[in-house]
């Protein structure tokens, strides 16, 4: 099976790379795809030009420009030119995407045919969304999507959201520092330890502290250990989960990572999470000045601008660092999130002293069609066109678009070497890291996708933020979060939350 899959990926990649040298009439008309030309498929430029949606209007609510907002508008304009449809694109700040769609959803109105949002909205939104029709689910373009991202966009086996982007958290590091023999010797001499890509969060912290606050790249500026998303309510809870998976996701204790599925008791204040938060509080000492107030944009600018040794979160910081205009292009590396030397076993109530690592398949951008829309066909065609091979290949090369790999054919190093001028070793490391997370691990953690997800995440953000600010100890902060989670579960209903949580646990426990 893997062999057949591998051959399929190779064939798809070959066709993508072959496309690189084929200028065609579509790339003349649409310069965005000049590197590949149109790539044949169910939703290619050629296929869309056969459709006639003249006189029909499509309304899309998407994110602000540029992240996701810019490609939405660009592909809307292209779609309009090809099909004759009138496409209206409304841009909304990230924090308001949920409520801007939810308010009309709940009041039975349908101002938008397509809504963009984050994949963890799925449980709250799904009753208002039209499932992706079988003809799209079964088409070749969709077969290329990794199983993790099929799972992220599906609910209990039914695809609700249309995959348009891929997201995961992984480690980014300064390869020119970590691989530097001079620094390796210096680190060994001063700490007695090897300087290498950190295998554990403890190593990450030690190295980050060592390289904090001095000019290790000789550019006349101070550099620091790590850039992380620590600003309250600015996706910080996802950063915390990335740090906690190694300590708290034990492959030998199925049945829930955030909650005990049986009792629905929160596990968030268990020793694994507390250990991770203790590490994170220590990290406030090796982030740049003001790093405790860094949002995602700051993290991207900080690591992408060469200010820190490490970073971890979405792809954007890595893509920014590898863009042509970056001073550190081809000086960065990608690796799986660090692991830990021990992992908490919540069943035995004891630490297990063995190495553990778990990928966090974090939520990311997605889009869906409103059930009440009167233009389902056109809306799905637009989304399919958005994610067609030619658009997707062009989009992932532009950092500010926020479109990241999620197709198996994306994880081929040659694509990045030939199209984006990446160093072959870095391209291979990047592709291998992402592919291993997507397809290789059986110890993955998926984001919370339960009713009232924002209430749970907000509680995490508040609690961890208090710990980072020194207002509470890690244990006190997470006890407060656990108490808040219990109240939310009680308000919404234990069985309702359990039923939804079970869907995510099945993915984590590899039951599907």
């Amino acid at each position, binding site marked *: 099976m893997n062999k057949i899959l591998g051959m399929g990926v190779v064939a798809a990649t070959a066709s993508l790379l072959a496309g690189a040298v084929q200028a065609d009439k579509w790339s003349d008309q649409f310069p965005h795809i000049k590197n590949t030309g149109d790539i044949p498929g169910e939703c290619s430029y050629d296929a869309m030009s056969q459709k006639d949606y003249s006189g029909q209007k499509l309304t899309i609510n998407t994110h602000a420009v540029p992240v996701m907002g810019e490609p939405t508008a660009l592909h809307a304009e292209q779609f309009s030119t090809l099909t004759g449809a009138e496409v209206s694109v409304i841009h909304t700040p990230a*924090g*308001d995407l*949920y*409520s801007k769609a*939810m308010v009309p959803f*709940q*009041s039975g109105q349908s101002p938008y045919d397509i809504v963009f949002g984050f994949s963890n909205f799925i449980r*709250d939104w799904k009753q208002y969304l039209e499932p992706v029709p079988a003809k799209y689910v079964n088409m070749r373009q969709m077969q290329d999507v990794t199983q993790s991202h099929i799972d992220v966009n599906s609910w209990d086996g039914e695809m609700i959201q249309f995959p348009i982007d891929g997201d995961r958290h992984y480690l980014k590091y300064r390869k020119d520092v970590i691989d530097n023999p001079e620094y390796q010797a210096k680190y060994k001499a001063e700490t007695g330890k090897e300087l290498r890509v950190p295998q554990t969060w403890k190593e990450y912290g030690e190295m980050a502290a060592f390289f904090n606050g001095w000019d290790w790249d000789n550019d006349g500026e101070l550099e*620091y250990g790590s850039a992380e998303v620590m*600003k*309250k*309510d*600015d996706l910080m809870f996802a950063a915390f989960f990335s740090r906690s998976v190694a300590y708290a996701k034990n492959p030998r204790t199925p049945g829930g990572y955030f909650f005990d599925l049986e009792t629905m008791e929160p596990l968030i204040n268990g020793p694994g999470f507390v250990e991770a938060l203790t590490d994170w509080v220590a990290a406030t000492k090796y982030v*740049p*000045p*003001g*790093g*405790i*107030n860094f949002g995602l944009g700051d993290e991207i*600018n*900080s690591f992408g601008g060469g*200010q820190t040794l490490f970073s971890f979160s979405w792809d954007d910081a890595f893509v920014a660092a590898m863009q042509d205009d970056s001073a550190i292009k081809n000086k960065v590396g990608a690796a799986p999130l660090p692991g830990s030397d021990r992992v908490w076993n919540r069943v035995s109530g004891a630490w297990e002293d063995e190495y553990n690592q778990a990928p966090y398949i974090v939520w990311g951008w997605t889009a869906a069609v409103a059930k009440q829309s009167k233009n389902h066909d056109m809306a799905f065609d637009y989304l399919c066109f958005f994610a067609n091979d030619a658009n997707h290949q062009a989009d992932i090369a532009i950092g500010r678009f926020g479109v990241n790999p999620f197709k198996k054919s994306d994880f081929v190093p040659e694509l990045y070497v030939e199209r984006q001028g990446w160093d072959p070793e870095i391209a291979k490391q990047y592709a291998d890291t992402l592919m291993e997370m997507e397809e290789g691990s059986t110890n993955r953690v998926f984001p919370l996708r339960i*009713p*009232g997800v*924002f*209430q749970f995440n*907000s509680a995490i953000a*508040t609690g961890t*933020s*208090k710990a*980072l*600010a*020194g*207002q*509470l100890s890690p244990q006190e902060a997470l006890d407060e979060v656990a108490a808040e989670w219990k*109240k939310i579960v009680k*308000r*919404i209903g234990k069985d*309702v939350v359990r039923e939804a949580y079970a869907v995510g646990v099945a993915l984590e426990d590899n039951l599907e």
Partner: protein
Amino acid sequence: MNFKHKYLFLLPGLLVLLGILIFPIGFTVRLSLSSWDSFFPGLDFIGLENYIRLFTDDLRFWEAFLRLSFLSITTVFLQYVIGFALALMVWQEIRFQRFFRVLFLIPMMTTPVIMTVIWRTFFHESLGPVNDFFSLFGMTPLWLSDEHLALVTVIIVEVWQWTPFMFLLMLAGLLSLPKEPFLAASIDGAGPIRKFVYVTFPLMAPISIGAIIIRLIEASKIMDTVYVLTSGGPGTSTETSSFYIFIKGLREFQFGYSAALSFTYLIIMIISLTVIAKILVKLMIRSN
């Protein structure tokens, strides 16, 4: 003569009032008695449950309210002092008087959110120009990351943004003052300080109270500065009531509960502003 038909002429105004004031408040009260959130959309009836939760199990709201009180009183006091001083300055015959009058108004004419983004860039601890300056003296103040200093940063931005409003009101007041008391004070040999203490300040008291109350009402709604500068952090150290209500309502989608917070907050504000106005009248007018 029967003038009962005159009430008909009041009807349009009453209907508008009903539409824009009474209905939203009434709907908020009704919403506050429901459990409407992301999972239970709809106006069910849960009695006073949300209010009980607020008064027995939501310390964060009350902490945010205390913080808001501190922020409002501090920022409005500073705005009043600085605004009054600037107004006194350009009230006198000075060179470039018109230029300064316009200059002092500029911050108020800018868009608060945009200016806060610019302030955030200024105060960025590792990339901003403010710390570039402080680093010359070997200091790196954590303007946005230290829980106490972050509060100071919010105060600085608020004072910068809204002092011009106070300046405008105070200048208008000064320009409308009668000249005779000042002439009389001069004849009696009063110097500038005595004139200010015994003539200007008492005459300006009514307008000062009005300006302070207007600014207190506005300052108590502080939201955009906090949202852009700190998101209420670090921790909850800059979280204010309106920001907290925004989080509960539009981030966590707890409509019913946030309506209870809003209504309670409205009642508290009406009572506290009434008390503050009475205290100010007593302090500034009756004592004079």
